[in-house]
């Protein structure tokens, strides 16, 4: 199926998880999956969906400005407000 199918869902990026979720749904919708496989696919799909949603919801706005030394090297971060 996909190259990500064997990896734990938690390790997947949002994009990978979304792509695999799409493929899982398409396979189930085609309906040509054996029962055992369809149960496994459903469970995997559910996990993928939860993972995607978590990734979407956990995202939070945070604006930081890098502070530089005299030579232009980064020294740290300073949180700023959106002007």
């Amino acid at each position, binding site marked *: 199926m996909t190259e990500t199918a064997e990896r734990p869902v938690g390790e997947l*990026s*949002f*994009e990978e998880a*979304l792509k695999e*979720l*799409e493929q*899982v*749904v398409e396979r*189930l*919708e085609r*309906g040509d*999956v054996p*029962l055992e496989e*369809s*149960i496994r*696919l*459903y469970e995997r*799909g*559910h996990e993928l*969906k939860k993972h*995607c*949603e978590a*990734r*979407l*919801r956990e*995202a*939070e*706005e*945070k*604006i*930081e*400005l*890098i502070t*530089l030394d005299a030579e*232009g*090297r*980064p020294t*740290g*971060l300073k949180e*700023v407000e*959106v*002007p």
Partner: protein
Amino acid sequence: MPLTDDTFAGTNAPEFTVSEISFALKKMIEGEFAHVRIRGEIGRVSTPRSGHVYLDLKDERAVIAGVIWKGTVRKLRVRPEEGLEVVVTGRLTTYPGASKYQVVIESMAPAGIGALMAMLERRKAQLKAEGLFDPARKRRPPLLPKVVGVITSPSGAVIRDILHRLRDRFPIRVVIWPVAVQGEHCALEVARAIRGFNALPEGGPVPRPDALIVARGGGSIEDLWGFNEEIVVRAAAESAIPLISAVGHETDTTLIDLAADIRAPTPTAAAEMLVPVRRELLADVATLGERLVHAADRLLAERGRRLGDLARLLPRADDLLARPRHRLDRAEARLVRALEARAGRARTRHAALAGRMTLRLLERTIALKRERLAAPVQRLEVAIRRKRTDARRRSIETGRRLRPALARRQIEKGHHALETAARRLALQARSQLRQLGQRLESLDRMRQSLGWRETLARGYAVIRGPGGEGVITSKGAALPLPRLEIEFHDGRLPVLPDQGTPRKAPAPREGSHRASQGGARKPPRSSKPPEGQGSLF
């Protein structure tokens, strides 16, 4: 000849020392050309470690040396580059120690847009030839970056536009690397920021972005010039983190745009291109989740229905067995009765048959059967004949196919059998011949005892015509003949019937078979005389 200056008559011009004249010149030139603008093409440029820049300015007929002191270099808006036509501002100085003069450049600007564009085109062609703008180098940013690095001025409209658009679409973590977006430091700082973000380790105190935006608002070509600088273009092309450039307005194309992975027409567009709308993504995921549940439900329902259908089609075990069980019971009950009845019938039939079973009946049956057999037997014979013919034909065909070696062996075997058979045949033939000989002798003895010659010995004779031809059996036949022949058992005697005295007979001949046979048949009929009679006459 005067040896001193004094000897030159009339030369009363004041004398200068070299230093005096050199410094006089210096004073004059630096006074006269303390502030000049010179237009020319940059020739050879050298930048030694001191940080000062030495270059030549030239036109078709003349060259003037120029220097840009270290402190001035950083303030230049245009980096001196060979071939670029510039207008420099500065002052002339001389160097009395080497009889040299030069222009100390305080500022430098391209000699018009045309000159700048020409240089830009040259640089673009060169970097393109290096493959820095290859589409194969371009990387796609992730669908949903975790951290976005923005390289731009921390103040101003650009960063505000970007941050606002990001907030609208998808609140996300943003790290700003502040840089000068125009002026002498621009190129260096932008290049350093790009490389700096790329150098950040994963999981360090400063998060490593998974996408970069390099942004600047619109401006003149000179304002944007920093983004055309080679160090910036190279840094952008080498960035491992996908980079979106959004420099100037849509119509302004800088070289960083060509080296970037994606070029956005404006900073706002860069934010839009980099980050999806969270609401839409959530909706997408929700839809996928619904489709997932629905598809799984449908799959299960479908399978359940099929199972139900099949289960209904499957009869219950009791139902399956009821009929056979019933039949078994009935059959069992009928079995005993049937056996008894059958035995009774057989007994009756046996009695009846025993009564009818007589010898005559058997004979008739046999005759009938024999008759019935006749036709099949005949057919069988015909079939056998046909079979034999076929076999012969086949054997001929087989014979054609026979292999010589095999045949030779067969022939040898045949020979052997033949010899054996021949020996046996010879043996048998000899014994048969012996038997036949014995039989022949006995028959001959019998024949002799029964033959007419024996009769002759007993006194009968055979009368023949002249030359021994024909058997004469009557007087009438004998009378017209001139002569006759009498055969005795020991020979023939010719006689003359008229004279009564027979002539001397010729030597007795062995009787011809025909005559003998003829004679053998005739005598019993013609021989009337009794035994002992010598002649018929």
